[in-house]
């Protein structure tokens, strides 16, 4: 047998595999089945480029007014704006990397398919790496180019900023390098984790990374305008505390390229050096152990462990549920949820939004110095409510997306009743979306204030959680994770104001009412009674609506609207 030494063959293999890898990378980030990856990429990029683009547009209006301002002030404003673009692109890149995480390196499936062909493992790994870098580069260019051109045009009106072509080069150079630095650093981290602790733990990190980047992205918009002036003052005063922050390296590079001045000695060089190092490390750590990774991937024994969520779910269902059908459906839904990467990614997005929204209130109070942990405050009581709001919305939305439609034939054959599917789904929502935030918050409240306060708030929150769950299940008549899904692409783009209002009422205004009701037993009882009456009305109404309904397996368009971040990402 001769090895594939034909000249050009390996290059052709590389090109073919790289092309396929781009498709796989895009497919890995799409939520719904049959979603067109190209359409997904377009929408995701459009969504990502909007914030910096809008900021750049605003600068066209703002910058002419700087012509008469003091140079120190102008310098501070310009530096802050550049830092925003850099920080944004770094976080957006981290988020995209988290979404593409699974497909960033060849999977066991890839090795099984390609491994039987005369292709070297290194060629496959190199093709995947090249595809990942191309996707990263394309994403970076797509979000940086429009905002870069606009911002450069806007800033060129001021003589301190530098000429248009120079600013364009500086903007694109620094933001693209920042993008490459984050992307390659995360690739390196992934390769290291996969080598050291294995694929499973590396995979779990993606969800954490996603939540963290979501939280930081939201916080950037909330708090960066407030924090930047302080940072800029420090920079102008010659302080060095900022020098360890990577965004500052790239801001220094921006300044160096645009104005030819150094923010601080060696800072711009650090940006270039760190990026080069991250690229080289990512390449080395991907290509060198390619053969070893393939062997480990193919020889890996399948995971047989049952996670803590499932163990808790089983314990709960054994105590709470009597019906065999409900028990079976609940356990099926729980296993589907905890083992589906797509659903984890989707829930991670909701979790990120929840943490960001909950922290926003707390952080704002903390910055103002009005945060008082010694007594119940709306911002503290809002924490479990916001978590329940996003948790329940996310779970409800996830339940509508199937894991494997082709395998749902046993469910079609056995026709579970609508009552069973609703009960199982309700149990899932309550056990994962209501119980954990209430337990965590109650423990914290009991520690901070008193067990009595914590108990009363927990009772209110249970009612509030049940109420929202019942509202979300008003038109539910399917088996979770087993029905075809037709995303309604307009849901998030056109209806987001409704969700903002709902969040404000449910998450924040209800917390204000709870603080008010904690003042007296009558108010506390009144609030609980109101909640219970609303819940009873909703339960009766939903039961009437479901009478005579059959379980659906082929959904067209849902009648109930959730945030549906999956179609938004689509």
């Amino acid at each position: 047998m001769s090895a594939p030494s034909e000249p050009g063959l390996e290059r052709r293999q590389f090109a073919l595999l790289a092309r396929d890898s781009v498709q796989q990378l895009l497919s890995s980030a799409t939520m719904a089945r049959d979603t067109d990856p190209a359409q997904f990429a377009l929408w995701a990029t459009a969504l990502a480029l909007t914030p910096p683009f809008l900021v750049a547009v605003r600068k066209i209006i703002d910058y002419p007014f700087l012509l008469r301002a003091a140079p120190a002030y102008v310098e501070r404003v310009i530096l802050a704006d550049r830092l925003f673009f850099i920080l944004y692109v770094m976080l957006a890149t981290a988020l995209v990397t988290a979404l593409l995480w699974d497909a960033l390196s060849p999977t066991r499936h890839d090795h099984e398919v390609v491994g039987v062909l005369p292709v070297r493992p290194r060629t496959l790994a190199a093709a995947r790496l090249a595809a990942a870098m191309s996707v990263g580069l394309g994403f970076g260019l797509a979000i940086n180019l429009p905002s870069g051109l606009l911002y450069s045009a806007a800033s060129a009106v001021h003589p301190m900023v530098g000429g248009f072509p120079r600013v364009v080069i500086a903007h694109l150079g620094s933001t693209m390098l920042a993008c490459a630095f984050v992307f390659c650093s995360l690739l390196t981290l992934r390769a290291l984790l996969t080598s050291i602790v294995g694929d499973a733990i590396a995979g779990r990190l993606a969800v954490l990374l996603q939540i963290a980047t979501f939280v930081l992205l939201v916080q950037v918009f909330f708090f960066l305008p407030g924090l930047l002036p302080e940072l800029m003052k420090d920079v102008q005063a010659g302080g060095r505390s900022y020098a360890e922050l990577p965004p500052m390296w790239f801001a220094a590079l921006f300044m160096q390229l645009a104005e030819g001045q150094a923010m601080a000695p060696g800072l711009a060089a650090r940006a270039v050096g760190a990026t080069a190092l991250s690229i080289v490390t990512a390449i080395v750590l991907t290509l060198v152990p390619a053969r070893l990774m393939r062997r480990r991937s193919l020889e890996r024994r399948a995971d047989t462990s049952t996670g803590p969520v499932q163990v808790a779910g089983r314990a709960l269902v054994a105590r709470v549920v009597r019906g065999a059908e409900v028990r079976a459906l609940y356990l099926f839904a729980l296993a589907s949820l905890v083992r589906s990467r797509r659903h984890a990614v989707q829930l991670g997005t909701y979790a990120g939004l929840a943490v960001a929204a909950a922290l926003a209130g707390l952080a704002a109070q903390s910055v103002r110095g009005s945060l008082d942990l010694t007594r119940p405050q709306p911002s503290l009581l809002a924490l479990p409510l916001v978590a329940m709001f996003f948790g329940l919305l996310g779970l409800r939305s996830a339940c509508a997306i199937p894991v494997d439609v082709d395998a749902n034939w046993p469910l079609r054959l056995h026709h579970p009743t609508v009552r069973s599917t609703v009960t199982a789904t309700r149990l899932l929502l309550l056990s994962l979306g209501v119980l954990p935030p209430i337990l965590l918050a109650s423990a914290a409240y009991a520690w901070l204030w008193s067990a009595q306060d914590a108990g009363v708030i927990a009772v209110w929150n249970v009612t509030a959680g049940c109420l929202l769950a019942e509202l979300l299940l008003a038109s539910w008549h399917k088996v979770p994770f087993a029905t075809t899904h037709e995303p309604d692409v307009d849901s998030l783009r056109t209806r987001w104001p409704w969700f903002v209002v709902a969040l404000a009422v449910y998450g924040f205004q209800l917390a204000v009412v709870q603080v008010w009701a904690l003042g007296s037993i009558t108010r506390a009882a009144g609030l609980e009674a109101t909640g219970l009456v609303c819940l009873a009305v909703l339960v009766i109404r939903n039961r009437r609506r479901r009478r005579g309904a059959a379980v659906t397996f082929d959904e067209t368009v849902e009648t109930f609207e959730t945030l549906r971040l999956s179609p938004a990402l689509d």
Partner: protein
Amino acid sequence: MLEVDDVTKTYHGLIGVRGLSLCARPGRVVGLLGPNGSGKSTTVKMLVGLLRPSLGVIRWNGVDIQRGLREYQARVGYVPEEPRLYSYLTAVEYLELVGGLRGMPHALLSRRITTYLELFGLDTDRYLHLSAFSKGMRQKVLMAAALLNDPELVIFDEPCSGLDVASILIHRRMVSTLAARGKTIIYSSHELDLVEKVCDDVVILRKGHVVANNSVARLRELAQAASLEDVFASLAVDDDVDRLGDALANVSAP
């Protein structure tokens, strides 16, 4: 007793099965044979209630199955052709899902799952995700799922796909014993040798029509053939198999 009476199934104007009639009695194994595209899968899907006939009626103990589909399906065990399973579930979780949907009490279900997994030799892999199972192992899980609640009618569609020789022998014996216990069995397969040994009666389909429906012995006698394979070849195979085989082998020849 399962009766299929002049059943036709059309898909968007195309005929899948036309004028199909057959009868399966308790204690008998009815084989369903036919080349690819003959309408076997369509027939099986109609028999399990996944598809509704366009014309004709399927009766279980004299009652149209479409009138009481849920009650009928509660009596049916089905082993599908494609082992489409929720591959992220373990064998136990999958069987718990199916048993739960069939309303089996938890204690009984757990007992039966343990017994089936032991008998199928899967007890050491009970906590392994089905994605890690071989095709034969998945087939065994499907068989266990089909038999969990002791169904009156069992429909096997290519059940031996991926099974090793020992498992096939065990499976053959299991089918015979099920029939001896009074179960009605429909057995669809391409493995003629197996069908000949397992089935009492055989229905041969070709292009959506029934071309033969009789006992194996009677068919052999009528076609003056030594084996069921010869009967099948004379009734359902159009192609010149030798010529085609040679041609395929020589396509890439230098």
